[in-house]
């Protein structure tokens, strides 16, 4: 009896191994999407809508981060490689080159909308009004020791009052995303660089040292890298009213009963202020399309048509319900026609 059991087990194992080899040659009948965790909540809504209202299968959307997604996207052409990738930043020149080397020569760029980055704290505490300069002075590793920034010192600021006498004497404690995150990239670019610009001597430095001076975050416990999970930051802020968090606007939007966003340059992070561009910390979100797959994978054109339809990304579309800030009408029309005409990416 045991011999029989062993024989059956061996047969099953062989069958599985056989399946493994046959699966390799299989044709893919669904769209494969990878990329940014910030764009993930939006692309998945479109994917679900698409899968449930058309004859096509629901696309599979992986959350790999912008950089990881572009790496997979650029790995080559063929059914084993993804068709689309989400990105919370624009594709880089080096990435286009890598794509080209692997045969991915034609890429179409689709901007899908905007996302705001909020600096928020618990409602139990006071709301602050900050400027990029305040945030730079509070969070950079080295800060200017004199007015024009020609001398620099390790960041001595312990409270917000040290940074700007108008702010309360609240301990600086900011939870933010790690360097691998697209949110972090956008934050340093939009806030830290802008704060840096106000110091003439730093502004005059050459590119590399200037970047190091502006973009290095402090590591003495006042800025804490809290991981990629924004919900975790939200929970931590609720438990610790003194702390601030840096995360995507949609999480602030879903937690308005617990959190409040700090004004940046006097503008509060709100749907309308991000849409009209008056809130300074917002970034575009992209989807990149592999042209060579358009006629190989069924449903790709229809999926893109769904994504660029007014009922999805329009002002009253279902994506805006999920927290995506729509582009102005003209921009929407332009990107929609670019995608329809498959205009190649030009950096």
């Amino acid at each position, binding site marked *: 009896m045991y011999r029989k059991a062993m024989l059956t087990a061996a047969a099953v*194992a062989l069958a599985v191994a056989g399946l493994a080899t046959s699966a390799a040659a299989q044709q893919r009948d669904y769209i494969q999407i990878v990329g940014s965790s910030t764009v993930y909540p939006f692309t998945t809504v479109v994917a679900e809508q698409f899968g449930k209202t058309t004859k096509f299968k629901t696309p599979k959307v992986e*959350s790999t981060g912008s950089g990881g997604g572009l790496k997979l996207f650029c790995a080559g052409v063929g059914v084993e490689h993804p068709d689309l990738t989400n990105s919370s930043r624009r594709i880089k020149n080096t990435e286009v080159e890598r794509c080209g080397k692997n045969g991915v020569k034609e890429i179409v760029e689709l901007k899908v909308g905007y996302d705001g980055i909020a600096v928020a704290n618990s409602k139990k505490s006071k709301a602050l009004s900050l400027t990029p300069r305040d945030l730079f002075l509070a969070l950079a590793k080295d800060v200017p020791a004199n007015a024009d920034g020609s001398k620099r010192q390790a960041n001595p600021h312990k409270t917000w009052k040290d940074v700007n006498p108008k702010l309360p004497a609240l301990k600086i404690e900011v939870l933010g995303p790690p360097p691998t995150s697209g949110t972090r990239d956008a934050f340093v670019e939009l806030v830290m660089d802008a704060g840096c610009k106000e110091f003439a001597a730093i502004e005059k430095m050459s590119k590399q040292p200037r970047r190091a001076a502006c973009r290095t975050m402090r590591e003495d416990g006042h800025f804490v890298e809290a991981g990629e999970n924004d919900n975790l930051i939200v929970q931590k802020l609720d438990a610790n009213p003194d702390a601030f968090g840096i995360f995507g606007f949609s999480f602030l939007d879903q937690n*308005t009963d617990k959190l409040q966003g700090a004004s940046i340059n006097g503008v509060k992070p709100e749907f309308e202020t991000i849409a009209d561009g008056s809130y300074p910390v917002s970034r575009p979100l992209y989807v990149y399309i592999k042209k060579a797959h358009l006629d190989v994978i069924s449903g790709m054109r229809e999926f893109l048509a769904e994504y660029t339809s007014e009922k999805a990304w329009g002002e*009253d579309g279902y994506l805006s319900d999920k927290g995506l800030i729509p582009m102005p009408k003209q921009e929407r029309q332009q990107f929609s026609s670019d995608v329809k005409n498959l205009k190649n990416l030009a950096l």
Partner: protein
Amino acid sequence: MATPPKSTIERVRATLARRNRAERRFKNLGRAAVLLGLVFLVLMFVNIISTGYPAFWQTYVKLPVYFDPQVVDPQGNRDRETLGSADYGALVKASVRSLFPEVEGRRDRRDVAKLASRGTVFQLRRMVLADPSLVGVRTEIWVPVDDDYDMLHKGNVDRTLPEADRRLSDRKIGWFDRLIAEGRIESRFNATFFQAGDSREPELAGIWGAAMGSFFMLVVTLSLSFPLGVATAVYLEEFAPRNRVTSLIEVNINNLAAVPSIVFGLLGLAVFINLFGLPRSAPLVGGLVLTLMTLPTIIIAGRAALTSVPPSIREAALGIGASKLQMIVHHVLPLAMPGMLTGTIIGMARALGETAPLLMIGMVAFVVDIPQSVTDAATALPVQIFLWLDSPERAFVERASAAIMVLLAFLIAMNALAIVLRRRFERRW
């Protein structure tokens, strides 16, 4: 003057109190440790169950629906293509607005239509496609409400907060309260949660897709790792000579059992996906990776079970003329099997709860369609929990806790099975 030597009993008495105290201290310390462990366990359960319990209920609203032929089938020829692509959203909007005829203004009319879940559109479409004779019919159907209202009905929205601080304005709460007063709101068992795949709408999201993904993965893992593990254990324990090579293998197996699971994910990505060209996100690859991970556990448990079979059994079998293989297959293996099975089940339970290696092979994905085979795109239960906890919608937190409860139930069942097997079949010599 020297003291007279103490008698034994005196020496015992002198230290008795101290030794008794030491024993009590140790016992109390042990109790405190157990108690501390229990307190944390209870805290975890209370936290998960109290958050996750409401997810097993879903708020439904009764909608009067008119399957308007003008919208659904303007030509009237019941063509499936037309029926499939009709604007069911318009039906839902018309239906909700008919409950609130007084609501005016573009924004309010739009908001009121969002009372019903976005899934209502798909539900109506399915109904019509399944039964085209519904076109032109007026009926009342129960549909899930949007997750914000579901949270309100479950008491997760604090009505005392100022209006600006809530996800739902006073108007919206007013609409909902009116529906309650009209008897159109009902809390029902959330069957969707156990039948559906993932969704971006919390009220439509379910764990069935993830559960099937986990199931396929465990089938692959079990069918590969059990025979391989048992064969390896038997060979190493019964046949292999004791020399440098085998002891090197032994050290390596013990080492592998302690390797962090993410490493197996990296290996899986490099070998199974990049080298063999297997599809990403498939339970097949997940199962293969988990096989690598559980093999050492099964081999170690199997060898321990084999060594615990007393040599007298082997000698008796050999003594009456059995060959070595007969001795193993007829006598040793049956006696060692309960121990091996226990090890296997514990290994499987560990594989079920594993996420880290799955990150690398693309199983952290949004998969709506229920996987039908080991090569379909799928995700797994613990990954689903991770994805839901990462979503901004508040209602997903409770769904995630409910999914944790389901996962824990599976794990407890598997471990209980292991204990039962051990109790029932284990023999002591």
